[in-house]
C-alpha cells in the first residue's frame, strides 16, 4: 500500500511539473512577439533575436516556477515596454542638433524609461510577500524588454536603462520596507 501510494505521489508531482511547464508556454509565446515589433521598428535582427530568445526563455521559466517570479512577469514586461517605446520613438525622431553638435535621444530616452520602469516595478513589489525575489525578477525582465529598443546606440542605451531602473527601483522599495516596518 505504501509503495503504491509513493508511486502515485511521484506521478502526481511529475504531472504537476508538466502542467506548470505547459501552462507557462502561451504567455512566453505571446511575449515573443516583442522582438518582432522591435525589429520592424529598426532594432537589428540579430540583437532582437538574441534578446527576444532570452525574454521568451525567462518568461517561460518564471511562469513555470511560479510564486514571486511568476507574479513578476506582468509588471516586469509592462515596465520594460516604457523604455522600449521611448527608445523606438527617439529612433524615429532622429537626432537633436544644437549649434554644431547633433545628439541622439536614445540614451536620454532609455534613462528616462528606466526611471519610470523602476518606479513601476518598485510599487508592484510592495504588494509581494517575497519582495526581493519579485524586484530582482521584474527588474531583470524590464531590463531585457527595454534592451530590445535601448540597443539603439550599443551598450550605452542599455546602461542608461539599467542606471535609471536602479536609481528608482532600489530606493523606492527600501522606502516602502521602512514605512511598512
Amino acid at each position: 500500500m505504501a509503495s503504491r501510494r509513493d508511486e502515485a505521489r511521484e506521478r502526481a508531482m511529475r504531472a504537476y511539473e508538466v502542467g506548470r511547464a505547459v501552462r507557462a508556454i502561451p504567455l512566453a509565446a505571446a511575449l515573443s512577439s516583442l522582438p518582432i515589433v522591435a525589429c520592424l521598428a529598426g532594432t537589428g535582427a540579430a540583437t532582437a533575436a538574441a534578446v527576444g530568445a532570452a525574454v521568451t526563455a525567462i518568461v517561460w521559466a518564471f511562469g513555470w516556477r511560479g510564486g514571486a517570479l511568476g507574479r513578476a512577469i506582468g509588471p516586469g514586461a509592462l515596465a520594460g515596454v516604457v523604455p522600449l517605446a521611448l527608445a523606438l520613438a527617439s529612433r524615429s525622431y532622429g537626432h537633436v542638433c544644437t549649434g554644431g553638435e547633433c545628439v541622439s535621444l536614445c540614451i536620454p530616452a532609455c534613462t528616462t524609461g528606466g526611471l519610470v520602469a523602476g518606479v513601476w516595478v518598485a510599487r508592484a513589489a510592495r504588494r509581494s510577500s517575497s519582495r526581493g525575489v519579485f524586484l530582482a525578477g521584474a527588474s531583470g525582465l524590464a531590463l531585457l524588454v527595454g534592451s530590445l529598443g535601448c540597443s539603439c546606440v550599443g551598450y550605452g542605451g542599455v546602461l542608461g536603462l539599467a542606471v535609471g531602473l536602479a536609481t528608482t527601483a532600489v530606493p523606492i522599495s527600501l522606502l516602502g520596507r521602512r514605512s511598512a516596518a
Partner: protein
Amino acid sequence: MDERALRELDAAMARVADGDRSACPLVFDRLWPDLVTFAARTLGPGPDAEDAAQEALEKLFANAANYDPHRPTLAWALAVVAWECKTVARRRGRRRERPLDDGVGGLSDSALGPEAAAEESAMLDALRGAFEALSEEDRSTLVSTITRDASGPASPALRKRKERAIERLRRAWRRIHGE
C-alpha cells in the same frame, strides 16, 4: 475531514497553485485516503480503486495552477475521482461486452480458477439483471428465438422483433455497467 482540515487543505492547494512545491506532499497525503475510499465504494476494493484515485490525483495536480480558491479542494477532487470511476466502470463493461461467439466455450469450462469463476458468476447475475429489465414481449421474443425449431426459417416480423429485443438487452446491460 473536519472543518479545520478542509480549510488547511484549501490553503495548501492555493499555495500549490501559486507554485509552492513544499505544499504538494501535504495536499497529496490529505486527499489520497479519501479518494481511494470513495473509489473503493464505487468500484469495489482492489487495484481499480487505487488506479482511479491515482489518475484523479494526476489530473488534479496537472491542473493545479488553474485552481479556483473559491472552490473547495475536496469537492473538486471527489468530482474528478467520480469521473475516473465512471471511466474505469466503462472500461470494465467493454471488457465484458464481447460478441457471443467469442469465448462462449470458456463459460462452461470447468477448469476456471476461483477468480474467473467468481467473475463468471457476477457476469451471469448481471446478464440476468439486464434480461429482467426487458419488457415481457422482449423476453418472450428472445426465449422463443432460442428455443424454437432452428430448422425452420424465422419470419421477417420475428427477426425484426428479435433485433429490437437484442438491442434493448444491450442498452440495459450498458446502463447497469455505468456507460
